[in-house]
């Protein structure tokens, strides 16, 4: 709490450690309450939307928990609409005449294919049904450390380098080697041939 008070008293622009859960006194919301059937539908949807790799043990549960936390930040009507879409998608095999078992009752491949079909529907409401849950699930999955590693994306190390550069610039050191490395095919051309600067 002392930290919280200190944070609220001083306004400055100093960089921090860029931790995933910054210790700044801010609390993330509790998960949105879902009944067991809705949780099962969400679980099946997550399983169908995610790729096989690079999942880790427990990643699906963590993603489900985060999706439910995000729902707390939405207006209640939006969150309830999302719950309704979970159930509609869960029973999409039935209303798409693909069988009588829900998504959670069938194989993952079948669910993935059916969701693909829905997301390319000509009808906007059907496409929209997939859009919200897919955005929530995939944005969470592609924000995970093991997935970043698979994509060779390491923003923290890069930003730390840049913060050090900014400190050097403040000391008046402006070095050519601090430029972002040119992608090989671009080297032949002028690096940044701006024609004019907007006034």
């Amino acid at each position, binding site marked *: 709490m002392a930290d919280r008070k200190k*944070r*609220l008293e001083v*306004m*400055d*622009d*100093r*960089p*921090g450690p860029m931790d*995933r859960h*910054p210790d700044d006194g*801010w609390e993330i*919301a*509790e998960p949105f309450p879902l009944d067991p059937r809705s949780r099962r539908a969400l679980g099946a949807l997550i399983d*169908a939307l*995610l790729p*096989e790799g690079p999942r880790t043990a427990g990643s699906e549960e963590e993603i489900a928990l*985060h999706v439910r*936390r*995000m729902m707390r*930040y*939405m*207006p209640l*009507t*939006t969150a309830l609409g999302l719950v309704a879409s979970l159930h509609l998608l869960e029973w999409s095999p039935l209303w798409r005449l693909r069988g009588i078992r829900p998504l959670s009752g069938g194989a993952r491949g079948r669910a*993935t294919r059916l*969701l*693909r079909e829905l*997301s390319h529907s000509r009808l906007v409401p059907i496409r929209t049904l997939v859009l919200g849950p897919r*955005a*929530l699930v*995939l*944005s*969470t*999955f*592609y*924000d995970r450390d093991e*997935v*970043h590693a698979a*994509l060779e994306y390491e*923003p*923290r190390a890069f*930003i730390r380098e*840049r*913060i050090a*550069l900014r400190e050097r*610039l403040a000391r008046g050191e402006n070095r050519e080697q601090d*430029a*972002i490395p*040119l*992608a090989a095919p*671009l080297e032949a*051309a*002028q690096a*940044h*041939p*701006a*024609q*004019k600067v*907007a*006034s």
Partner: protein
Amino acid sequence: MISEHADYARREEQRAEIVVIGTGAGGAVVGAELAEAGYDVLFLEEGGYHPTSSMNPYVQESIPRMYRDASATIIFGRAPISYVEGRCVGGSTTINGGMAYRAPEAILAEWARSMGQPDLGPASLEEHFLRVEAATNVGPQLNTSIGNDSRIMAQGAAKLGWEYVENPRNQDRCVGANSCVLGCPTGAKRSTLVSYMPRAIAAGARCLTEVKATKLIIEGGRCVGVEGRAINPRTRRQDKRVRIRAKAVVVACGAVQTPTLLLRHGLGRPSGQLGRNFTCHPNAKVLAVYPFEVRAWQGVNQAGQIREFHDQGILFAENFIPPGALAANMPLHGEEIHEAMLDYNRMVLTGVLVEDSTSGRIHRLPFGGALPRYDITAHDHARFLWGVRKLAELHFEMGASKVYLPFSNLHVAHHPDELARIAETQRSVQTIELFTPHLMGTARMGSRPSESVVDLRGEVWDLPGCFVADASLFPSAIGVNPQVTIMAMADQVAHRMGESRSLRRAA
């Protein structure tokens, strides 16, 4: 002093001379200027306070902290447009790309002409532009911050003979960390979080965060305060009542939330324009994949814009985003999305921005929510199709191996010849996927109550004591990033309020 939910009593009562709702490009400027002029200013901010030291490059952390409704916001219409806006101290300036363009002179001259009022023209706004540009350190980028996606756009434009213009940005030694949209972690971007708000607080202003303004307090036909609800950060329930009495109220909640609050009181009657004239610069994304590593996440998020077609109301620009945000916007899942995302380091995300030729409307829902509506016109649709094709051609010209297109029924092209299919397949407006961060014009400023919602001081025609200072003031779309124009108009409103004799006397 900054306060948050835990600091409030169950029924919190405060007084101030001026209460400002919102701390973004409009609210922070008005509040800081008035606080420095000696007024007792109190800010009301729906979001939380997240200093630079808490910024990090993780979507999961930053979206709930800083984006309205965790970014699940949509403009309904043909076609639906997803939009984003900030909900935190600094508002959208905390999460935008930091582009600092002035509204074009021709637009300002048109505002002055159509409203019959030179106060909205370029000459009158000049001093305000200069002030806000100085306060937020607007200038060109350092060469060391330019990344490969910007180089591709600049070189592609040069190859095709198109005009490419370097962006002016509100930054101080920006080194291209490219985390603008999740809050600048270096402190370089001069959002109002690190420019105007510290000035306001140093001048004695108070800021109540985590409070949603729910209604204005109106007595004797005059606005004398605001009532709000404090949001419990764990449950997100509005569980405490906050009342602030003031001599004047400045509403600066943005072009969607400002009319929603004012509509609760049935305002805007003289013209019937409140909530109307909603414009949003819709844009469509074109994502190119190159056969070499671009690492677009390294380098400033947008170094310049292709303005060759600006007289047709079309801009092209790059704007790279973290993988979590990118994956959420791709029409793929399962193994397909992962196969695509494995190319993340070879991707360049660009957009076609189209200046509105029409406008929409903000409706207020029965329980206080906002319902934005906007239908793009056939003319705008045609400009999108043309713009997407041209931008995709630039990428193929620069050697892209594949381009993802913003159409639900045609989302990838592997060769420039395939772009001809755009015209064949895109007959309906419903298949285009649109997005916007620019929301404008729902409480237009003007010199006649029959045509506008607020007067030239920003005061609502039919509610004395209530002022507006945000993008809602725009009489029309401006065709460029609106931040600096919002700030300049807010600066003008602040100075006129400061000069107001009645306000002075009250203070």
